[in-house]
């Protein structure tokens, strides 16, 4: 009897922790949005009737999509080079990607405050070159948030894709070339399909990471460029509108789950190794 229960007993503490402190609390947050006396979807009607909150949702989607596209393109090219350069240079490149990755989001966002500020390095450089006569206000713009977010996610993309690209057997590439494929043909018909599952996984990480971020939009976007994460905080801790905050939380959970679910299915279908 004890023997039959052993696997369950070993898995129980971790399972109970997730159940008691994640599934139940998050479930209760989601439930409160459907248990309003005014009607079961009233909080969502309120959310979508508010022009400000709708704008925040659309802005968050827009920033996340742009960040994802840029991170995928930049990350792919950099990872491609990492996968092809000789050992010593490769180590340097990996260090250059790991160092920012392991440095916290606050420090990395802060770097962009110094770069883009009124007395920042970019303004000084542009003034020095005589390209502008007045310092530009670059902080608290959508561009500032996107730049910092791409900076945040490119290392993750590089390290995810470098492994994938290194895993492509060179025989496959040589075979394609010897059969007459052009370099672009090899890229489009061999490398890209083989890297697609990894690309999708990376893209999902970047999109959900941007969609639910807090520190970067707070520091570089401020009130002007509020995103879902900063809206959630503002609803909960500034206006004490807990139902409103729970609604924002619920939308974040639904969007994240739907994207992850659809994309992992797509990645599985596109995986040539499985098909």
């Amino acid at each position, binding site marked *: 009897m004890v023997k039959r229960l052993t696997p369950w007993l070993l898995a129980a503490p971790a399972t109970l922790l997730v159940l008691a402190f994640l599934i139940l609390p998050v479930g209760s947050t989601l439930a409160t949005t459907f248990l309003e006396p005014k009607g079961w979807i009233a909080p969502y009607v309120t959310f979508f009737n508010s022009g400000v909150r709708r704008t925040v949702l659309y802005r968050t989607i827009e920033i996340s999509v742009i960040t994802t596209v840029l991170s995928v393109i930049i990350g792919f090219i950099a990872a491609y080079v990492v996968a092809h350069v000789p050992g010593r240079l490769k180590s340097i490149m990996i260090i250059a990607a790991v160092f920012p990755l392991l440095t916290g989001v606050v420090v990395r966002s802060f770097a962009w405050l110094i*770069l883009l500020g009124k007395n920042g390095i970019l303004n000084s450089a542009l003034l020095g070159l005589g390209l502008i006569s007045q310092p530009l206000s670059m902080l608290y713009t959508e561009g500032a948030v996107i730049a910092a977010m791409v900076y945040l996610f490119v290392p993750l993309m590089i390290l995810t894709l470098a492994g994938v690209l290194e895993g492509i057997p060179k025989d496959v590439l040589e075979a394609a070339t010897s059969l007459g494929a052009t370099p672009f043909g090899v890229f489009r018909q061999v490398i890209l399909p083989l890297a697609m599952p990894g690309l999708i996984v990376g893209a999902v990480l970047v999109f959900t990471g941007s969609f639910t971020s807090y520190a970067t939009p707070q520091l570089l976007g401020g009130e002007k460029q509020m995103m879902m994460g900063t809206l959630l905080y503002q609803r909960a801790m500034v206006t004490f509108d807990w139902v409103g905050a729970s609604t924002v939380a619920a939308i974040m959970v639904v969007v994240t789950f739907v994207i992850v679910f659809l994309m992992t299915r797509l990645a599985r279908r596109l995986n040539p190794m499985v098909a």
Partner: protein
Amino acid sequence: MTTKLHPLLIVFAAVIFAILVAPLFIILGAAVSDTSFLTFPPQGFTMRWFTNIFDITAFRTTAITSLQVAVTGTFLALLIGIPAAYAMNRFRIRLPSWLSNVFVLPILVPEIVLGFSLVKSITIGLELPVFATLLIGHTLLVLPYAVRVVGASLASFDFSIEEAAISLGCPPLKTFFTVVLPNIGAGVVAAFILAFITSINDVSTSLFLTGPGVSTLPIQIIAHMEQFFDPTIASVSVLLMILTVGVMAIVEATLGLTFLTK
């Protein structure tokens, strides 16, 4: 794979990697600037912003809280995560397959939603102390590392070695510590490092789980940044980057940095 790289690709990649590292060097420069505002290139040279950190009590207390939470949370996550990972690999057919999805949930649920839900249900609902909820939040946050990274090590472990030890009369618990654990050591080290660095850098989960008297260093940095724009934050950032370098040195010495590309 090997093919010739186009020179333009190499130039592009070189620029990318330079941009990845440059902002962090700019912080280093800003931290030693002898000015009361943040600027780069630094004007003059001073170490007073570094000594200033230690004059601000809030940085000291929150740094201690961050370390306590990161070490304790990581330890707790490994304590319950390793048995779970072991059970899922050793008794694969006797446990349902959805169980592994349960341990992905802390990654899947947005961190800020987790923090918000915990403060609502646990700090306010169950009236648990702020520090306890913060610790619970961080243990959950890093649990997936414990289960998945250690699990990956166990997946390549040959359990017939364990059976051999048991059939020769070694008690199961002793077998685990003398036979299984030494074989998955690298996975445990990796899980510890990844969990620790995730916890110490976390903002989104901690955001709601800090309260009067209890805060973490990243939350304190944001609070300070919103009031002052002096080089103190740059010098705190430099200290955190030194910590990152230390962690990287440990990774390189134990697993090799290429471990992170897998």
